């Protein structure tokens, strides 16, 4: 029985506790979720194709295609949202990805035809965005 209680005690000590805020007073706030976002850079071209109607050259249909797209990951920010017993602290930065896009002919599944579409490929990491997280305030605060 003694071995059992020692094991329980050890196990309890080994279980990682939520990160806690050690500083003085607890601010009673938590991190706010910010959804992922895609922003587009510059002017767009149109992935359509030209036709002649009454002798006029017209560009028909097609999605707008921006040369670059920045993809911001879902992350958290400290915006002072109230939450008793917790604090909002900085977390490791997260990468912001960049994609290059261009109009390409892409096959339409099951039809045997290809239609002009905006096709984007990874170009790498454009930078980093600050992240945040919610931590428990320490019991003494």
């Amino acid at each position: 029985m003694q071995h059992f209680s020692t094991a329980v005690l050890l196990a309890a000590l080994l279980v990682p506790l939520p990160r806690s805020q050690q500083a003085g007073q607890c601010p009673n706030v938590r991190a706010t979720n910010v959804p992922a976002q895609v922003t587009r850079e510059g002017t767009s071209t149109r992935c359509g194709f030209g036709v002649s109607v009454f002798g006029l050259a017209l560009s028909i249909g097609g999605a707008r295609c921006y040369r670059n797209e920045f993809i911001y990951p879902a992350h958290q920010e400290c915006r002072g949202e109230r939450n008793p017993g917790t604090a909002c602290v900085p977390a490791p930065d997260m990468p912001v990805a960049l994609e290059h896009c261009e109009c390409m002919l892409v096959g339409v599944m099951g039809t045997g035809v290809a239609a002009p579409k905006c096709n984007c490929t990874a170009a790498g990491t454009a930078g980093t965005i600050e992240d945040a997280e919610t931590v428990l305030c320490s019991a003494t605060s």
Partner: protein
Amino acid sequence: MRWILACVVCVIVALIWEQWFGAARPLPPLSAQERARPRPAEEPGARLEDAAATRRAELPPATQEAPAAAEPEDLVALLRRVALAYAAQDEDELGRLLTQLLGHPARCEEVLLLLEKGGLHEDELARSGAVFALGAALSCYASATHPVEVDAHAFTVHVLEGLADVPPPEQLDLADQLIQARDGERYVLELAYLGKILELRGLHPEQAELYSSLLVHMSENLSDARGLEEFRALFLTEGQDPTAVKLSLAALLRADASSWLPLAEQLFADGHGNAPLRSAIAYAIATAAPVEAASASLARLANTGMYTEFALLGMREGGSEALAARYSELAAAGGNALARKMLVSGLRTEDEAVMVGISATDPDPGVRTQALLTSSLGRASGPGLLDQLESLHAQRGDPAHGIGTTQALLVAGNVLINSDGAQRERAKEFLLRIAGDPAERDADRLAAAHALKPWMPPGTFENWEIGGQPVK
């Protein structure tokens, strides 16, 4: 039995009758589709040849002939064929079908009605064709040279009015057709439609952003005092509509940046927690204010959610120089590391040597990393950048001079994607070294292995374990 035999004989007689005399029956009535086919323009042999030639010369070309009036169901079939011709990229067929449809403005009005009243609700192909057809009609009718008798302005107004009732996703597609419609270099939605769009925007407050988006080309090409006044009113009264703010503020900044920039910055400060509004303001500043004023303003407002805006400013004429000048000022003063980082993010056209220089001299590790990320993004890197990366990573224990492993991995990942030959091999070796180094954090080792995996021979990581987990 006799009855059965009599029936068999009757069937045989009927078959023989059909074979011999069936052809003499009158043809069934033409289907609507057949009726819609172009008819011969001349009655054969009824005129003298020279007179017929004169009349033929007066006729429009064969492709411009309009079909006879068709039934509503034919219109749906026609819209389907438009969508199919588009998907198959059959330019000739698409041109022929659109010529057939656009020759009758009333039918185009009917297409709009079908789209907005849900008449094509269950027919995705026809809905798609309807959007293409209306886009073509907007451009075609706005041209001075088409042969169709139509009030182009009234037609465009009808499409603008109908847009509010078109269900998604075609609503956005139709809005896009309206925005993109043009006659040569001239956009169809010019200043003449500003009042109507603002009126409709007011009538449909739930769709204000959709209608605001139609103002984009007007905002970019504004050269009219009355239009500017309208945009000023829009900016001052619609401060919570990001699209309206973006377009109206851009127009105002182009006309008078010194007056409007302070107000824009104040609105940005007041918009704390409203990311779309802040993004709209920053976008207007980056694209419309003079480059020197814009770089100073964006440096004051900088946050890490503004990569697009700094990149846009860096691409404008003189933008990169303005960003570099502002960076030099801040670096000399040793202030605002976040602003320096974002200014450096816009220097995508600077030489690699300049960016490597920034990464060697800036006192902040975030700026040093950003300089290498910017330089390695979207272009091949040289040996100088790889040397600097390894040098900074070797000093990772000293935040005043080095950069951390997590940041170094991102730079190496960029080199892997955008470079080839010797520099890509060096990036691979660098990542492989981190992946195999037990002194590094497991998360960094795993990230290095994942970045490498598509570039290595199959089975490279087969027996690898990081943090007790196999590398999948």
